[in-house]
């Protein structure tokens, strides 16, 4: 039953199955798997069946696009008109958006079916989905382990066959790290490639929406549907959108790949290092030339990220004042109401980041912390620019470790932050990167990250596709 999007499309187009049947099969899978994995905050069964009926009409009329009638999951940070959008926070537990995000409108226009809204770390702040204020999501490869985060629910919905594909958001690794931990494909597009209108803001200079899918072809299909300029998001870029499926080629002849040595260092599990060696060898066999490269400012990425992202978050989350929407504490005075609304509405990690960001932006510390981090950000970005003068793409592990145990890092913020050490620099530079399955260590998934130039998602997809076709790791499915 875990059809890929393109497999399901063939069946739908040739009338071997209807979208209603396909959707019901996924809803049944949701009923079986949810008690164990808990990927969904809201399952939209009624809406899904209505959308499936509409899709079947379109298919009967010969108007079946690649996503028509395909069941997808949407991360609960992306606004869906009339369907509650919680950000897995008590603050928005009952929030029903009056409009849909542009990406949701685009998926609707493409005839896709939404099976539900996926769990996440509260306000997308976290690396394990344990920061959800609602419940913890479990990794289908080992239910005692985290699925990664913050798009953990989206990754699990795809890995457990509850949806054909999903949308997530990625501020410092939140699509790629859970994709790696769950053995699915996850792409963070270039900053500005996909409209963020209707994405609840976390860190506006870093956030991007992107797909989580079972294979690279599906990733290209969702990118075709969601990319492009949007007049409602002034940070979206008016670059033409290519047909991403055209870049899915089976060899890497002439491709120059860099291997940045700073990503292969201490803290990396030996099993992950071994798999990466094999993966690099496979890329060479496929025709690519590989060369070690140095990006010396990489070790500063963690500090840069955890100053800039919380600073932006502290400003973005100022809107939760208990007046316009969301949780509201009816205190004695206006200030009392506001402080208690935020005290009781936000969870510990969100509060920690608001505090950190407020500090970095406050009088007397702004230049020493925030502006300093922005300057080092320039150096990190320039390093990527010069690397891409010599290489078409860079290859790294997605995470230094396999999925960790639930509860293992919850008491140590720095240890948790370090699990994103390979993904953070990419958002800092704004470049695109994809994580694809690269094998297993003791039955636990490992992801390989491919990083590319601004607006060269096609290169990433080409490398990812050639590697995927040569290895087939994605075919191995979790049993839940």
């Amino acid at each position: 039953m875990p059809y890929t999007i393109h497999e399901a499309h063939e069946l739908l187009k040739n009338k071997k199955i209807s979208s209603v049947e396909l959707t019901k099969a996924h809803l049944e899978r949701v009923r079986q798997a949810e008690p164990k994995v808990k990927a969904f905050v809201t399952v939209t069964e009624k809406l899904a069946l209505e959308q499936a009926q509409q899709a079947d009409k379109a298919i009967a009329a010969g108007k079946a696009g690649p996503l028509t009638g395909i069941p997808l999951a949407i991360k609960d940070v992306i606004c869906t008109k009339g369907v509650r959008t919680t950000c897995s926070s008590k603050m928005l537990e009952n929030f029903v958006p009056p409009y849909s995000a542009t990406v949701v409108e685009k998926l609707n226009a493409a005839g896709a079916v939404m099976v539900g809204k996926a769990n996440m770390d509260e306000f997308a702040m976290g690396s394990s989905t344990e920061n959800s204020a609602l419940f913890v999501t479990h990794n289908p490869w080992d239910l005692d382990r985290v699925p990664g985060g913050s798009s953990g629910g989206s990754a699990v919905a795809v890995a457990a066959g509850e949806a054909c594909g999903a949308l997530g958001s990625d501020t410092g690794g939140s699509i790629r790290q859970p994709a790696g931990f769950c053995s699915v494909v996850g792409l963070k597009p270039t900053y500005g490639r996909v409209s963020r209108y209707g994405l609840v803001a976390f860190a506006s200079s870093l956030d991007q929406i992107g797909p989580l899918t079972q294979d690279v072809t599906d990733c290209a299909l969702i990118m075709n549907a969601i990319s492009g300029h949007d007049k409602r998001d002034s940070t979206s870029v008016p670059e033409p959108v290519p047909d991403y499926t055209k870049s899915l080629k089976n060899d890497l002849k002439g491709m120059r790949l860099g291997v940045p040595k700073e990503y292969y260092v201490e803290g990396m599990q030996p099993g992950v290092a071994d798999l990466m060696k094999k993966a690099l060898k496979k890329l060479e066999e496929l025709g690519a030339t590989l060369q070690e490269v140095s990006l010396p400012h990489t070790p500063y990425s963690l500090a840069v990220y955890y100053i800039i992202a919380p600073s932006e978050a502290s400003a973005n989350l100022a809107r939760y004042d208990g007046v316009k929407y969301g949780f509201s504490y009816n205190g004695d005075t206006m200030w009392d109401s506001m402080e208690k609304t935020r005290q009781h509405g936000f969870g510990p990690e969100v509060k920690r980041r608001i505090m950190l960001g407020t500090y970095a932006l406050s009088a007397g510390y702004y230049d020493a912390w925030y502006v300093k981090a922005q300057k080092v950000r320039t150096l990190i970005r320039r390093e990527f620019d010069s690397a891409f003068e010599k290489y078409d793409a860079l290859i790294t592990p997605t995470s230094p470790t396999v999925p960790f145990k639930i509860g293992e890092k919850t008491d140590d913020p720095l240890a948790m932050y370090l699990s994103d050490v390979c993904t953070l620099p990419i958002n800092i530079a704004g470049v695109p990167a994809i994580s694809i399955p690269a094998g297993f260590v003791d039955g636990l998934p490992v992801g390989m990250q491919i990083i590319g130039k601004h607006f060269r998602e096609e290169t990433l997809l080409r490398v990812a596709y050639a590697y995927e076709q040569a290895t087939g790791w994605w075919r191995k499915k979790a049993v839940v």
Partner: protein
Amino acid sequence: MKLNREEVLHIARLARLGLTEAEITRFGEQLSNLLEHFQVLQQVDTEGVPPTAQSVEMKSVMRDDVIAPSLSPEDVLANAPRREDDCFRVKAVLEE
């Protein structure tokens, strides 16, 4: 890089964030630890380096101001915790 209790309370007040006694202590320790780690940035020579606010080269984006339908008052107020007619109801803003 040790944040004392007054500094923690000052930041919380700037952020309009109520904290329990336990949170004041815990955040004080955790933020101090994180800031200590982030001190590594001071080792980086950034003389003459401009700051990056966002990563894709774009100038200020303007568009024509065209009149178009916006959300209805009902839609806008549908999630309001407290409302009165077509307004959000809040406690007195100006103190005596």
